[in-house]
């Protein structure tokens, strides 16, 4: 059972944990992200000595468990980060997780791309529309995205070429991608 569950996607695990109250699915999901959760939490633990990992992690898991049953989760990683930040930032306040407009746009495009993988007509259509959106992007963004995604250049290559730190580079890339997504979504209105 454990082996079968580990092969399932996040979405499937979440639906199982929610609809069938399958605690094994929940455990597999949490286990999948546990190392990231630990890595993200360690800086907080070291900066705040009053936090005990024996209390923080069970409490975090409890929160995750509670929100898993009530919240709509599009992306497990975003959800976990939100809960973690909410717990460590304001432990007394339980802010619900809600994906942003941009996040949902991105998710929508990802799903369309995913669907188009098996349909050649859809895929051709999608490619044409993405190319169009890409053409509308500003020159800097267009160049960055083309280099990173289409020319398969790594962070190291790009940092070396542009002289920007990795953090900055990543945020620029992220912003460019968000712009592209926005352009793609608004194509119908613009043209």
């Amino acid at each position: 059972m454990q082996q079968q569950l580990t092969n399932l996607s996040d979405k499937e695990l979440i639906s199982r944990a929610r609809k069938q109250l399958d605690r094994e699915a929940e455990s597999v999901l949490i286990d999948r992200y546990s190392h990231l959760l630990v890595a993200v939490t360690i800086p907080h633990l070291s900066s705040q000595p009053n936090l005990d990992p024996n209390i923080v992690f069970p409490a975090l898991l409890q929160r995750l468990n509670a929100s898993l049953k009530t919240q709509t989760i599009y992306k497990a990683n975003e959800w976990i980060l939100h809960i973690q930040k909410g717990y460590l930032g304001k432990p007394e306040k339980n802010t619900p997780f809600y994906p942003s407009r941009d996040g949902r746009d991105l998710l929508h495009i990802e799903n369309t791309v995913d669907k188009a993988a098996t349909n050649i007509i859809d895929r051709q259509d999608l490619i044409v529309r993405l190319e169009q959106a890409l053409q509308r992007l500003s020159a800097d963004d267009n160049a960055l995205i083309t280099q990173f995604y289409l020319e398969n250049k790594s962070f190291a290559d790009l940092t070396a070429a542009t002289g920007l730190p990795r953090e900055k580079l990543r945020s620029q890339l992220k912003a460019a991608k968000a712009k592209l997504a926005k352009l793609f979504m608004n194509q119908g209105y613009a043209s």
Partner: protein
Amino acid sequence: MLVNKPNNEKVLKIFSAIRCLSRDQLPRYMEGRLTDVERHLVEQHLTDCDLCYDALTALEQEENTERYQDLTNKLQRYVQNSIQPVSHVQKVAQYTRKEKNKEHMLAYFWIIAFIGLGVGSVYVLRGHMRNQPPVRIMASSLPQKDSVREEVATGVPLVTAAENNPGTTTPAPATTPAIQTSAKPATAPVHPDSAALKKAAALKAAQKKAAADSIKKHTLLQKQADSLKKEAADKVTAKAEEKKPEQRPEQKPAAPKEKQKEQAPPPDPPKRETPSTAVNSDEYLYKAAMVYQQQGNLNEAINRYKRIESVSSGKYVEMARYQLAICYRSKGQAGKARRMFKEVIRMDGSMKAAAQQALDGM
């Protein structure tokens, strides 16, 4: 606008979803031990995923790595220990709950079933009690000696006459042995008649109750007395005047019957001499019918009397007709009863006076 083909397909890559970094990918990425393709995928994901990027930046600080390993292992163990046992416990609890529910339902079912059964049986029993007792009372009360005696006394006045007569008939020398037999008829059969009769009666007697036995005795007595009386009448015709005054104080209805018996003798003796078995069977039939009558089963009694009437001959036809009339009377069929009584009177036998009396009384 057509762009070169390879780029064309790669555009889709911008928006393809990639999984978060797995547990072994993260250190390998940090150490640069990934293939180019894999590294590119990881970096693509890192641009989108804040969680993975934050984790990466956190782990890139040297002091965090040891704690990372330790805490990750602890957390994984904690998750596995806390969630899986719970799920197992939950399953067991669910199973036991289900079983308990099943048991409860079964218990309820049986309780309801038993209650239903009890109520049903009480209902049935009550219905049974309501219907049964009269039948039982009838069956048990009818054969009681008083009622039987009454019936016999009213139906066949000869019996009473016979019972009362012994005192009067004893002087006759021929009657003494007959009286002895009548005194203890069930034990020692003296007459060939009574012996054969006993055999036939023994079969039926086994089936019938003690009450029926007593009836038989009465009827036997009656028969014996009947025959005795006839013999006595034959022999003591001359002394008839003497007997009458003696009997009168005892029984008034018996007196006229004596006269009838004096006339009756001629048909009787040949009957007894010739087919004794036929007479016995007639007698037996007659008694059986009588028993039915006394038990209250009038229809059966009527059927049997009718058969006697059609099959046999002699005085039993007359007696059967007389009893038939009585049966009809007690059934409330006055017309038929009257007709039967008239027939008995027309036959001009021993029962004429009794029939006349009954007809007058109706």
